[in-house]
């Protein structure tokens, strides 16, 4: 494994950096889109609600690989030329935001209905109640499942390998097929993923504790 690192370490590191950047970008945007869609799912507006529900139902139920392949193959033919890396990030963002939307919706609905009624009766508008009363409480409920989504996102980024997305898994595949050292290569790849996911897990647990302590 040492020889593997000395010869192919650069390739693995490049893959690691690409996976890390892709994960951060996808995480950022799927958080925004997911939260928005999640709020719309419980909104009073029938049209917005229907649209948000359709989005979630569609992308929750299609395999990530299919979404990514769509952006890799079909999208460049008709819209704009994007490479495997970009296609991967877009696919991953769309897919993960559907899961985050579901989590956020569950969080909001987990806040007792009386909170919304109380907010409205004190003169807050719907959005003000949402912003100052519901969401701060919902975040506490949402943090543990949200952490799982983040970790899933990092691991799901391995589908980039299928569209030549230059991520950790892609380079892992190349090295494994070149050296025939399958076990060693994928062990290295697994360790590199752990370098991202383990700190993330601990950070989410820390956030959970901090929010709980505030009560």
């Amino acid at each position, binding site marked *: 494994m040492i020889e593997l690192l000395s010869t192919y370490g650069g390739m693995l590191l490049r893959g690691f950096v690409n996976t890390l950047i892709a994960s951060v970008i996808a995480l950022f945007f799927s958080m925004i889109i997911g939260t928005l869609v999640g709020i719309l799912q419980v909104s009073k507006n029938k049209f917005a609600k229907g649209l948000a529900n359709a989005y979630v139902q569609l992308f929750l139920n299609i395999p990530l690989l299919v979404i990514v392949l769509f952006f*890799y*193959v*079909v999208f*460049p*033919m008709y819209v704009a030329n994007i*490479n495997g890396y970009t296609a991967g990030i877009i696919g991953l963002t769309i897919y993960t935001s559907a899961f985050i939307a579901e989590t956020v919706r569950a969080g909001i609905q987990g806040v007792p209905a009386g909170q919304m009624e109380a907010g409205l009766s004190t003169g807050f508008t719907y959005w003000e109640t949402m912003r100052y009363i519901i969401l701060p409480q919902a975040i506490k409920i949402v943090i543990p499942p949200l952490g799982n989504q983040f970790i899933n996102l990092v691991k799901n980024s391995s589908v980039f390998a*299928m569209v*030549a997305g230059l991520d950790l898994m892609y380079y892992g595949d190349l090295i494994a097929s*070149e050296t025939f050292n399958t076990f060693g290569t994928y062990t290295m790849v697994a360790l590199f993923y752990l370098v991202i996911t383990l700190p993330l897990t601990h950070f989410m647990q820390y956030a959970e504790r901090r929010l709980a302590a505030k009560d």
Partner: protein
Amino acid sequence: MKKSKKYSWMLFLLLPLLLLTACSGGAIADQDIAERIQENPTITWGVKADTNLFGLYNIEEGEIQGFDIDIAKALTKVITGQEGNAEFVEVTSKTRVPLLKNGNIDAIIATMTISPERLKQVNFSDIYFAAGQSLLVPESSTLNGIEDLTKDHTVLAVKGSTSAQNIRAAAPDTNILELENYAEAFTALQAGQGDAVTTDNAILLGIIADNPGYRLAGQPFTDEPYGIAIDYGQENFLNQVNEALDTLVQNGTYEQIFHKWFPDEEVPDLKA
């Protein structure tokens, strides 16, 4: 007692059968094929039945068709005077050499690359198809060979294939993206994710046959030519095949067959 006597004479019937099997094993394989053709002018060729353009079983017509088949028929015609004397036995990459060694087939014409390892086992005729790694590009492409590749081009290959390693060595500055299989690499090319797909020209020609609008960019840049495998000890037959192959090239039959299967390709110079 009476009963056993009745059957015992039947054993004699088996005797000639035993003799037959005893001598045939060595005899057929050792028999000089060139001499045998004088008496019995059929030649048995081992061919592929699952390879597009070279040897593919046509279910509608109930026969194997392809470039290899037509070359074998033409060679049979030159050697024995009649095309119909060619018989075909379906082989795979695994079974072809044992079948040849046993004498079940006289020669193998089944997309078989001439290589030093194989020459230890079987003899090869002259080249009958200049196989090698090539580039598949859209008709409109400006690429006309590996020398046109620059650092702005992207070549699509298949993960873990020798063709991926070859192209990296042959065009070190070019971007190489590796996909899961040929179908995905070709789909990526169609989607504009790369400028060319690279692998053996025989496979690329198969893709072109099903997808018009694509062409090969120039001649192959690796040398993995196909030859007809004939067992050692059959040098007379080997010479006959080589002479017949020369005849086909000279009288234009080779070109005709080549264009039948690869209409838009340039006929390669086999002697080069």
